């Protein structure tokens, strides 16, 4: 059995539309103008148990609507969904025992109480037997290293500390699948790193399936094995992070430090190579991976110059993602 099975899932909303101006506003008081907006359009995918999937897309692409249908919050218009074998909108309560949710922008912790109080309340909500609950809580407190601040009111915690406590609240009932919506939003570099590490550990040690939406490229690279890209309600890419890079990484950067200087512009003439920086001893090239290879460029450079140091950099993930969105929006124009 797969952790998540989605087949031809669709959802549309009615959106209020109104022409500009006071007259139109007045008219809309008496007659609502509605237009259909397709949020999710016939999407299908599967997530295996223990897999770590990043579900990405620009704002309004259909990510949140999909997650809401997977967690039983929204009814789809058509299509099938099974999450741990359950149909979310029909068996919502049973499903809630199987899944955990972390919404970076919607805290679950009580603001004025210590996080510990929320954990105990969640123990009641998930009907966890006292001994089992204590054991689980001790394990998570240790894993997330929150001992020093778990008894302080949440309002006094830093965002990073708060997020770690949010994670504990979501994992207290040992869910099989964890749905995370922008969990690292607003966190500093260290807090992001800690959160990613813990997610990977939970996945490794407890086999928790992870389904994460994020605008942070680091989340994709450091957490996900697989990426699903959704835009305008349709899946436009579904594959490994490596495959995503291969398909959409348009260029690589080569940094070169040479011992014998010279005029690089006159000597390097390879199609697909652009010189970004050409100082005497420090040069930087951008090469289009579709037109040439790193090897071809390096062969030529090493032939001509005595090289002291080389650095080869991939296209930053942020740029890959924005390329995908740009290409898709061009295609749909």
């Amino acid at each position: 059995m797969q952790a998540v099975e989605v087949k031809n899932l669709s959802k549309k909303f009615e959106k209020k539309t109104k022409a500009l101006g006071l007259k139109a506003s007045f008219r809309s008081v008496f007659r609502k103008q509605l237009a259909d907006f397709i949020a999710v359009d016939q999407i299908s995918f599967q997530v295996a148990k223990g897999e770590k999937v990043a579900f990405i897309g620009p704002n309004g692409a259909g990510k949140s609507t999909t997650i809401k249908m997977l967690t039983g919050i929204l009814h789809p218009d058509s299509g099938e969904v099974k999450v741990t074998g359950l149909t979310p909108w029909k068996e919502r309560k049973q499903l809630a025992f199987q899944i955990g949710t972390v919404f970076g922008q919607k805290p679950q912790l009580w603001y004025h109480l210590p996080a510990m109080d929320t954990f105990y309340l969640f123990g009641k909500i998930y009907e966890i037997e006292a001994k089992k609950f204590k054991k689980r809580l001790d394990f998570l407190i240790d894993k997330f290293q929150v001992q020093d601040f778990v008894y302080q009111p949440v309002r006094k915690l830093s965002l990073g500390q708060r997020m770690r406590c949010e994670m504990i609240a979501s994992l207290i009932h040992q869910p099989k699948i964890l749905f995370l919506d922008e969990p690292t939003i607003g966190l500093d570099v260290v807090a992001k790193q800690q959160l990613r590490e813990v997610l990977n550990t939970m996945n490794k040690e407890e086999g928790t399936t992870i389904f994460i939406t994020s605008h942070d490229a680091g989340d994709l690279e450091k957490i996900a094995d697989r990426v699903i890209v959704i835009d305008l309600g349709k899946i436009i890419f579904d594959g490994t992070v490596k495959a995503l890079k291969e398909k959409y990484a348009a260029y690589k950067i080569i940094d070169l430090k040479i011992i014998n200087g010279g005029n690089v512009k006159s000597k390097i003439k390879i199609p697909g190579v652009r010189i970004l920086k050409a100082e005497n001893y420090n040069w930087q090239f951008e090469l289009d991976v579709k037109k040439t290879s790193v090897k071809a460029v390096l062969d030529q450079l090493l032939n001509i110059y005595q090289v002291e140091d080389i650095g080869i950099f991939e296209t930053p993930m942020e740029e890959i993602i924005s390329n995908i969105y740009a290409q898709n929006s061009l295609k749909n124009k």
Partner: protein
Amino acid sequence: MDKVLKKLISMVVKNLDFIWAYLKYNLASAMEFRFNFLSQAIFMILNDGLFLLIWYFFFQYFGDLNGFGFREMIALWIFGAGGFGLVNAVFGNAANLGTIISNGELDFYFSFPKNHLLHALVSRTDLSAWGDMLFAPIAFFLFFPANLLSIFLLFFGILSGAMILLAFYILIGSLSFWLGRNEVLQSSLFHAFLAFSTNPSSVFQGVVKFIIFFVIPAGFATFWPADLLKEFVLSKFLYLILFTIIFFLFSLLVYYRGLKRYSSGNLINVRG
């Protein structure tokens, strides 16, 4: 049958345990700001007492209204404040249900394995309501003879009044499923309920009387419990139970009918 009964009892016990847990943490959260909590509760008791004082002078000056005097007014306020206090202390989000619906905030409660409506209602407490809740027994023991029947009727009346008010909150909150944002309408309906339930019942006649029993059922929430406290009539007692159950089930029916129209939201919130 035995199995069904056991399951039902277990469900009730679990939900009561859940409500109790929330009540504890709501109170604990309120205690974080002790002065705020105590001052709101104490001032509400004084506020209710002040209203009674005004009515005392009113009846002293004008006399009874069709047999309705100061004693009847105290009874009305006991059940009015008691029912209001109980609902808003335990189900403190009831008054915000319409806003929760129109803002798409039910999403949060859908992700837990509990009834989402119950969860939404219990996840807040109204601090001043604790004062109202305390006012009811204080006024009762000051002005009414305490015996087994009267104490039973006090708790029964507060409970039935609370259920009727809760059902009314659910009904006016459910309007948001159809109307979207409509805070002003909800607030007007709620204040009509409040006004009808805490003013002399004897002055309402004809169409208004029909309205305050069957449209905005303030009459059942306070008039009848007050009548029963004055003179116990079994048939009235049973009718009140029947009405409370039917009205409560009706509110749930309307709520779940409206829920089919619910669309979620993407607001950013912080829990109290």
